[in-house]
Structure formats: structure tokens, C-alpha cells
């Protein structure tokens, strides 16, 4: 089962990380996590369902472009990291 790790910045809406997910791609894996953590969705995706501009996702060690990452395929052993893009100060 893929594991989804969430940045410590999101502890207020996803208390334990990583979360065991189900899904053949990042989108469906996240959707499953959102079902048990409904508040989390608005922190990761905007109201159009698009990955927020300053959130980035690594899949199996590779940072994928924001416009493609939700469709990236996962294997049973995939590790997904949902991180904040570094910006601001």
C-alpha cells in the first residue's frame, strides 16, 4: 500500500503521518486520505481541485511538476511526500 507523508506544517489537519493510502495514482490516493481527513483537502488543493501553487509532491524520491503530479501512477510500495514549497521568510 502506498504511504503518504505530510509535512509537519499540516499536523493541525492530519495528526499522524505517514498515512497508508489506497489508489493507483496520486489523485486517488489523496482522495482516500481526504475521506478520513476532510479538513486536509483545502490545504492541499484549491477550490478547483488543483494542487496549491506552493505545495509540492515527491513520488518515490522525485519531485514531479504540479500540473502532472496528481496523475502520477503509484505502485504498492510507493512513498509520496506532500511538502510545502520553500518560499517566504
Amino acid at each position, binding site marked *: 500500500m502506498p504511504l503518504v507523508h505530510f509535512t509537519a506544517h499540516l499536523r493541525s489537519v492530519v495528526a499522524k503521518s505517514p498515512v497508508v493510502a489506497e489508489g493507483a495514482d496520486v489523485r486517488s490516493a489523496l482522495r482516500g486520505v481526504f475521506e478520513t481527513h476532510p479538513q486536509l483537502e483545502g490545504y492541499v488543493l484549491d*477550490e478547483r481541485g488543483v494542487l496549491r501553487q506552493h505545495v509540492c509532491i515527491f513520488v518515490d524520491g522525485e519531485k514531479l511538476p504540479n500540473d502532472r503530479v496528481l496523475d502520477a501512477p503509484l505502485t504498492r510500495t510507493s512513498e509520496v511526500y506532500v511538502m510545502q514549497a520553500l*518560499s517566504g521568510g
Partner: protein
Amino acid sequence: MAVKALVSTRKGLFIYRRSGQRWEMGTTHFAGTPVTLSFYEPREKAIYAALRHGHFGPKLHRSDDGGGEWIEIATPDFPVEADAKPTLKQVWAFAAASDGTLWAGGIPAGVFKSQDKGESWQFVQSLWDVPDRGRWGGGGYDESGLHSIVCDPRDARHVLVAISSGGVWETRDAGKSWQVRTKGMYAVYAPPEQKFDPAIQDPHRMVHCPAEPEVMWIQHHNGVFRSADGAAEWQELNPPISNFGFAVAAHPSRTETAWFVPAHSDQRREPVDGRVVVNRTDDGGKSFMTLSHGLPGEQAYDLVYRHGLAVDESGERLAMGSTTGGLWFSGDGGESWTMATARLPPIYAVDFA
């Protein structure tokens, strides 16, 4: 008189408490997270805080016990089918109507209504669909921003909103339809033929006199304006020091009294000659007093943002916060000020509770 002050900053919400004439730091909330605005709604005694997580989008929280416990409430969302595919960047305006409706606005300049204390929001499609929206400017951010909402205490269906570089808009049917209300304003920053174009007027902040809501005040990009007829017409005033600035506060009952915080100019967003001052008029803008007792008198670069000045229901107590993190209170209508701290994070907004 108010006993709490809500100070919204780039790194959290600070609640100050009054003890006699002294204001002291009370509690800190949402530490490290930008709080773009907070709002005390006296009918329900609720505090609303608008957060703008740098990475995770805007979020709203409400406290029903004066800032003890907070719950995250719904974020106003633009509908997916809305023209131009907007996504909300921050909440920048709150107001409560006499029927309990909570209004919110933000960046981009959409407006939303809630009947359940922010548990759910309805997008006001009609304002987004006015034909002029395409000409609204950015007003300091990449997208247009709605920063002022004024609810008529006599009629919950009657609301005015102000949009940076997008004019002033009025509804008398609770948001079903809108009319622009900028007669008398002009824009020196626009090409000459567009000087009086209502849709590009740049109100920085709009307030009304709660006891006499026909009386309204605006700090505009290139001037200070007052209306005595509910925004049907605006008259330009001539304050001393500078007519540029962001903040304005209206006396709760005296129609002739309002406060402004002048800044140097569009090009230099800082006090004139390094002195922080407040301009007050007590005669409807015919004359002004420049008040500075207790405020920095030299080498100050404090800019007071549009929500950075507040007056309480007594009309005597004021709070003012700056981009440099200075926080001042007055208990005598601005005649004298006391600095509570000089070192908060940049202050976006102050409100009394």
C-alpha cells in the same frame, strides 16, 4: 468601552487586554501564520480570524468565547464555473448585517454571505458578473481586492462594498443587483480620458458612521472623500500633511468626526518627514487637526495599512498598528497616544472586541 483589541499580524493574532487605561499583551493565536484580518461581531460575540497560510491557502477560524477556543470554519470558495477561474487568495473584509448575515470579501474581489456564522458560504455571483469587472485593477496585489463592506444597520438588504481600483458598489436587494457609486471621485493615476471612470476608482478604505450610515468616508488613492447621502455623491476633502494613505475610521455617532493616517505618497509609502501623525476632522472635513502626541516624531517608517486603525463604540478609544510592528492606543479620541509595543510583526489589522 472595549476591553480587548485584536491585532492581526504577519505572524499571528495577538489579543491585547485593557486594564484601566493600560493595554497589555494578552494571548497569541495562530503563531507564525499570517492573519490578514480579524473581526469582532458583537451580536453573537464571535471573533472571526482570516488566516493566509503561505502554502496552504486562506482559512477562517471563529472563536465563540472571546479568543479562548477556536474552530476552523468553512473558507469562502469561488464556484468552479465562475468566470476567469478565480481561486480565493485571502479574506480581506468582514461585516455583519442586522439580520445576522455575515458578509466576507477578499482577493480576488468576490463577496460571499453566510447565514450560519461561517459554517457555510454563498458566493454572490451578481457582483462577480458586473460587466465592469474586467477593468478592475490589482490595487497592490496581482488581483483585485475587496477590502471594505458596509452594512446598513437599518436595512440588512442594503450593503456597500469598496474594491481597490474597482470602485464602490451598492446593493439594496441583499446582493441580487449592484450599482456603482463613485460620483465625485477621480483618478489621477489613470489616462486622462479615464479619470472619472467609476470602475477604476481606487478606494483604499471605506467606512460609515454607524449611527448615521448615510455619512461615509473614503481614503482613496489620490484623496480623501466624504459622502453625506449614502454614496450618491462624494466630496473631496483637503487634509493637511498628505491626502495619500490607507486607513480611515469613522466616529460611531458624530457624523462630522473621522480619523485618517496620512502617508507620504504612492511612490513613498511612509510617513511624511519620518513623523507618524493622525489627521482628525470634527466638522465634516472642512478642517483637520494633526495629532501626534505620543507618536514617533522622527525617523519612523511606519505605514498604517487600511485595516490598521480602529475606533471603539465610545468614539474615544482608538487603536493603530503599523507595518513596522508599532501598536498605539488612544483613550481621548486621538489627542494623545500610548505605545503598547514597537516590535510586533507587521500589523495588517486592528479591531476592538
